[in-house]
């Protein structure tokens, strides 16, 4: 089977500052990958190139086809993106925002059809947004808003889901809920998931494969216990940690050794 996403010798520079250098990454269909790395290591840039917002040097192939051969409309049916922050200057209701995920599926001149409404309702149920479907997005809390954005992404019925720090503004309960939802989508629907993450412990718990970036290069790529070692954390983040196995989950967890 062809990989869902494949990059070969991908590089990217803003003006003269190189952000990504020679990144070759292959993501199989149905895989769930967490991208780790400190601020400025290139996580967000990588996701933007994968979602065709930025144009890097090198090759990006989706389902064994060059990314440039896709139209925007086809791309938006193939993958959906949950961005770090979403701005909203105009008053849209939750239902309207979720239905925007269906834009590529119906004629630009028509209103949403029955199928679109069904899909939107189902994704809102899945993300637990249905109870506030008629409220305005800007009235919601950060956690609710994030679930709406995820619902919109799922309404695109994508094969691949890209997320940029999906839990950045969420409290612990909502963080866990989001990750459990991602695991379910991955297991039950075979959705390929690539997420940039900050919380290393949550990443270790929920993601079977982790890719650690450092200064725009892939530094480690493997299972949580291969990537999250005391040595790599020291080399990449420059802090000392103790790594121990969680006896129940069997996953490595980090303990920070403060100098104080």
């Amino acid at each position, binding site marked *: 089977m062809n990989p869902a996403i494949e990059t070969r010798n991908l590089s990217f520079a*803003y003006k003269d500052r190189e952000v990504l250098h020679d990144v070759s990454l292959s993501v199989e269909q149905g895989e769930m990958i967490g991208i780790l790395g400190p601020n400025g290591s290139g996580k967000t840039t990588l996701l933007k190139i994968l979602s065709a917002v930025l144009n890097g040097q090198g090759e990006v192939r989706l389902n064994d086809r060059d990314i440039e051969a896709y139209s925007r409309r086809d791309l938006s049916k193939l993958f959906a993106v949950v961005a770090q922050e979403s701005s909203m200057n105009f008053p849209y209701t939750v239902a309207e925002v979720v239905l925007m995920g269906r834009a590529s599926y119906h004629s630009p001149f028509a209103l949403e059809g029955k199928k679109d409404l069904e899909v939107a309702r189902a994704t809102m149920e899945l993300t637990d947004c249905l109870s506030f479907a008629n409220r305005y997005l800007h009235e919601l809390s950060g956690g609710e808003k994030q679930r709406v954005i995820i619902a919109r992404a799922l309404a695109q019925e994508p094969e691949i889901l890209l997320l940029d720090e999906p839990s950045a503004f969420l409290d612990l309960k909502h963080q866990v809920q989001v990750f459990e939802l991602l695991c379910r989508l991955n297991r039950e629907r075979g959705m390929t998931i690539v997420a940039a993450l900050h919380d290393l412990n949550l990443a270790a718990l929920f993601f079977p494969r982790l890719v650690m970036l450092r200064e725009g290069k892939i530094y480690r790529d493997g299972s949580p216990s291969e990537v999250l070692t005391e040595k790599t954390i020291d080399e990449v983040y420059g802090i000392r940690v103790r790594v121990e196995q969680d006896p129940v989950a069997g996953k490595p967890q980090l303990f920070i050794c403060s100098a104080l």
Partner: protein
Amino acid sequence: MKVLDRRKMILVNSVLLALLALSIVACTLLGPVRLDLSRALHDLSFANPDSEILFRARLPRVLLGVAIGGGMAACGVVLQALLGNPLACPQMLGVSGGASLGGILGLILFPNWLLPIAGGLLGEISWVPLAAFLGALCSMMLVYRFSLFHGRLHPYHLLLSGVIFNSFIAAVIMFLNSIIDFYQAQGLLFWLMGSLSTRAYLTVAFIWAYIIFGFLWLWAKGLSLNLITLGEEAALQLGVETGALQRQIFIASSLMIGAMVSVSGMIGFVGLMIPHVMRLIVGSDHRLLLPASFLAGGIFLCWADTLARIALAPAELPVGIITAFFGGPFFLFLLYREGRKSLAL
């Protein structure tokens, strides 16, 4: 869940259409001279003064006002969506200033060297809107470029450079005004304040053609406009070719603004107020917001112009003064509310 459906589309648009029809009838009957509708319709010949005033003086003017009010409101809607800024409007962005300058240059330059080729009235009414369109398009792209840093549009730069560009253009226009002859200058000033005056049906039809064409073009982009309000990146990821969309919006709205400014000068604030009010009433979905704002803008300017005609009758105010009377305070109120919201008070 409540979403835009066909029933709401039809209901809102037909109610507004009915109100517009009523307004057109009412506004043609209102004026410094009292008209008797039955007497006007009884005899349509030149000999009947009632019919003459109704059909030669008032009706073309009211129809022109409807087109321009609707066009201004529709342009306001799309510029606000495209720039992600609820305070954007043609006047604020320097676009109508650019259109005025283009139109004036067209007006001054036209008779001398194009008259023998284009010939007469038809030549002027097609040439001046075109010159104004080019002026609008150039200024829109200029102001846009000056607010774009590292691929991101900065709303405050946008408003500020628009306002500054507008005052610069105003200075250029005043300079032109002082070097042309006195009679031309008098007409220019009245036109600059934004006024509707009676025009031939041919001119009115020409303006309607520009505006309907531009409006349909914009309306066809309604769904993409919804998505672009989420920001350029999100719109790209939802399947919108944002670059092409921006270009098309710039061209279509410049066409409309050029046509409007060429006959009526700068009638401000319609493009700011109407979209806001309609967003509160019908929601933010541009597939409905655009036609609804067009109709409401038509209704609004129709009445504003009637007020301009009768307030100091038999003297006449430029309608731009009426719209500014409503629009100025409204804009300040919006600015205040936005400020409160962003400071989360």
